[in-house]
């Protein structure tokens, strides 16, 4: 503790620690090998857990198969890299025995509940405030030691304590994502009909379990059928300890890994059968008339028309002409690739039985006595624009001006309990809770309006309440005033205009889409040029197109980061080599292609807004489209698969080896 960070650093320099290095293991497959160093002596095989999931008759499918393709596919370990590192300010008020904790978190309410247990404090003496949070992407969907430590120290010294994470600390102490080694086997008929899928999933857990660490690979397994009519699925997860930062939810959280695997496998099968990758997908999609569709992994896909976005994307690139161009390019010795990914995701996480801490969301709407509208949401956004989207929903439902709506979030003393924003759930669940609270209030406003107009049937629009018969109207503000002044009340009606709803979703939502990447590889340098990026995403009904576009762009950027540049690298002693932004390659403006984004809209029947969620779609759809494109470019050289990131060095080596083959 010090009065400024320079002094604190000086003091820390005076501490001499004598470490005795222990044997370490940083690679999950090496950690499984006989004789590997044990990360925790009490679990000498480094296996934290195994998990098996099966549906249909996978062994039968493989017995009947006319063709089986197998591939080891990795989804490398990534560092989420929210631009704002974590930070905590803890203020203890000894007189009140109350603690206020400011933290850069995605889950203020869950943090408060868990902190109460950690600190042994009554929860109602704790207040968590999450002012504007500078990005999360899952990395702040956690409860971290520093949050409890700052609180503990503030109580101990009876003085406010501030801790701001450095970028180096952020890379070494905030969760990482991905970290899969997947062994896929796909059984099919020679006409391209896919029969069964097997997966052995080795999950690099890091050294400890953070909040959701072991749950992430189970999401991969749930989504491994993708958009395809797979009757037979079998998956085994091996959760492995390594001497690395724990992995946990990072944008997509298990679904990018699943999608990357299945979308690569479909392309590998198509290549094996010499089928067109678009045609093999169209042949195997769950048909549009099959919804709700029960997957072999136990899910119920809510709605979909999987061919629609693919056809829209194929039209956008003029696919047949593009394949002709590719033929000419190949004849001229150029390495041009066309990559397709058709992804599905599981969003609006999720029904409470499927989550560790409640999967509902809450909303309170207050119409103030002046007619201004305050929305309090338990979803705690950090860049997703829910302040705007939720204001739109409220303004549309109540017929008021959007500027009269204020959305408040991220303060446990102000907002009723909530879960948070993650898993593409903000609008689909939080927005739906808001929708129902608005219905309650709308009915009450109409009652007061009808009373003031001395009529039966009224409509709400344009900031006024109008008698459908006489055309007379009363302003929204007048109604609000009357509801609080309460000189007269409608029958069986209480004063005030406040409504709270907690909405429990009956199912997940399942967005989908198609991404196409046109690439060209430089034969001499291995450099990849993304010539075109087409994203057709179906996230259900769209409330704010500009915000949805922003989510798609940002998602694609993180997918491209994984496909082309990013990788957390450890040496054999467990030292993180990519320990600063100088060494970890997040996408920069000049590296990003122009994203041609469009949509199809298949409403979800799960919620009355028809929305599905879009925060993670871009990331999930992206990486297989990029890798499929580059592998397609290199296919004439005999290249069948390359693991991410597709660095020029790796591509160059593949070209050299392919050339020799």
């Amino acid at each position, binding site marked *: 503790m010090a009065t400024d960070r320079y002094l604190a650093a000086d003091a820390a320099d005076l501490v001499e620690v004598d470490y005795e290095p222990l044997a370490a293991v940083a690679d999950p497959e090496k950690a499984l090998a006989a004789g590997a160093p044990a990360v925790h002596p009490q679990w000498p095989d480094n296996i934290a857990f195994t998990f098996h999931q099966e549906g249909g008759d996978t062994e039968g499918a493989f017995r009947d198969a006319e063709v089986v393709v197998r591939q080891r596919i990795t989804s490398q370990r990534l560092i989420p890299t929210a631009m704002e590192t974590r930070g905590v300010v803890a203020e203890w008020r000894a007189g009140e025995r109350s603690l206020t904790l400011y933290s850069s978190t995605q889950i203020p309410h869950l943090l408060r509940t868990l902190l109460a247990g950690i600190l042994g404090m009554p929860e109602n003496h704790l207040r968590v405030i999450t002012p504007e949070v500078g990005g999360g992407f899952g990395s702040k969907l956690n409860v971290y030691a520093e949050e409890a430590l700052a609180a503990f120290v503030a109580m101990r010294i009876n003085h406010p304590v501030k801790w701001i994470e450095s970028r180096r600390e952020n890379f070494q102490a905030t969760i990482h994502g991905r970290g899969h080694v997947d062994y896929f086997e796909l059984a099919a008929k020679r006409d391209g009909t896919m029969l069964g899928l097997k997966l052995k999933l080795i999950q690099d857990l890091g050294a400890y379990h953070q909040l959701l660490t072991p749950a992430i690979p189970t999401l991969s397994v749930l989504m491994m059928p993708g958009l395809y009519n797979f009757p037979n699925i079998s998956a085994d997860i091996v959760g492995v300890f390594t001497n690395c930062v724990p992995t946990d939810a990072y944008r997509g959280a298990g679904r990018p890994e699943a999608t990357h695997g299945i979308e690569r496998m479909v392309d590998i099968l198509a290549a094996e059968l010499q089928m067109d990758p678009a045609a093999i997908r169209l042949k195997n999609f769950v048909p549009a008339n099959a919804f709700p569709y029960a997957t072999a992994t136990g899910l119920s896909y809510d709605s979909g028309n999987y061919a629609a976005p693919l056809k829209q994307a194929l039209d956008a690139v003029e696919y047949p002409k593009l394949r002709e161009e590719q033929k000419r390019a190949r004849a001229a010795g150029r390495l041009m690739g066309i990559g397709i990914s058709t992804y599905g995701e599981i969003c609006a996480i999720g029904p409470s039985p499927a989550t560790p801490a409640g999967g509902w969301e809450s909303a309170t709407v207050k119409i103030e006595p002046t007619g201004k509208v305050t929305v309090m949401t338990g979803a705690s956004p950090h*860049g997703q624009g829910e302040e705007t989207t939720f204001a739109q929903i409220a303004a549309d439902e109540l017929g008021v001006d959007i500027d009269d709506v204020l959305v408040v979030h991220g303060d446990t003393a102000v907002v009723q309990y909530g879960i948070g924003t993650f898993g593409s759930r903000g609008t689909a669940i939080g927005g739906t809770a808001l929708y129902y609270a608005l219905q309650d209030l709308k009915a009450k406003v109409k009652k007061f309006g009808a009373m003031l107009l001395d009529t039966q049937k009224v409509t709400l629009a344009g900031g006024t309440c109008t008698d459908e018969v006489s055309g007379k109207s009363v302003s929204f503000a007048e109604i609000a005033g009357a509801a609080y002044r309460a000189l007269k009340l409608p029958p069986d009606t209480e004063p005030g205009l406040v409504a709270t709803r907690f909405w429990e979703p009956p199912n997940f939502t399942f967005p989908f889409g198609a991404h196409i990447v046109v690439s060209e590889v430089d034969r001499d340098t291995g450099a990849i040029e993304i010539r075109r990026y087409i994203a057709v995403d179906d996230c259900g009904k769209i409330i704010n197109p500009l915000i949805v*576009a922003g989510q798609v762009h940002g998602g694609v950027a993180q997918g491209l980061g994984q496909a082309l540049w990013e990788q957390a690298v450890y040496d054999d002693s467990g030292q993180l080599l990519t320990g600063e932004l100088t060494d970890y390659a997040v996408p920069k403006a000049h590296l990003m292609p122009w994203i041609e984004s469009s949509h199809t809209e298949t409403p979800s029947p799960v919620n009355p807004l028809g929305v599905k969620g879009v925060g993670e779609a871009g990331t999930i759809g992206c990486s297989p489209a990029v890798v499929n494109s580059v592998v397609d470019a290199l296919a004439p050289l005999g290249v069948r698969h390359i693991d991410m990131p597709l660095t020029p060095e790796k591509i160059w080596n593949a070209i050299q080896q392919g050339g020799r083959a």
Partner: protein
Amino acid sequence: MKRKITLHINAKPHTDEVEPRLLLIHYLREVVGLTGPHIGCETSICGACTVVLDGKAVKSCTMFAVQADGRQVTTIEGLAANGKLDAMQEAFWNEHALQCGFCTPGMILSAKQLLADNPHPSDAEIRHGLEGNLCRCTGYQHIVNAVRTAAGKAEA
């Protein structure tokens, strides 16, 4: 040994005694109380700390406050005047060029520098001009749109 420095920040003089090792970003945030410039990496990669020093955009995490003694500094707080946003701020707002907003103060100042150097940039020139500012949310596309709009160029 502390040194006395005077900086003209957003057109107002500020005189303080600071340690020579105090970084400009920490001086601006902790001493002057201007929290618009952010700290994202402390290795001059991310650009969140970008401020304008004597008319040039610089990364304030990699220079000392004493090096700015006697000089003019503009932070994001110095852009809006009389309740009216600067044209670049307005363009960022209208084009949805920010999501979490953490990179935005630096991004806007770099974008203004870019247009000062090249008033009619192509999209590729905009992207190269913003190479030194990382954004993890937007994928940069709406930022490019905003800079193009601010440059007064119609979308092709």
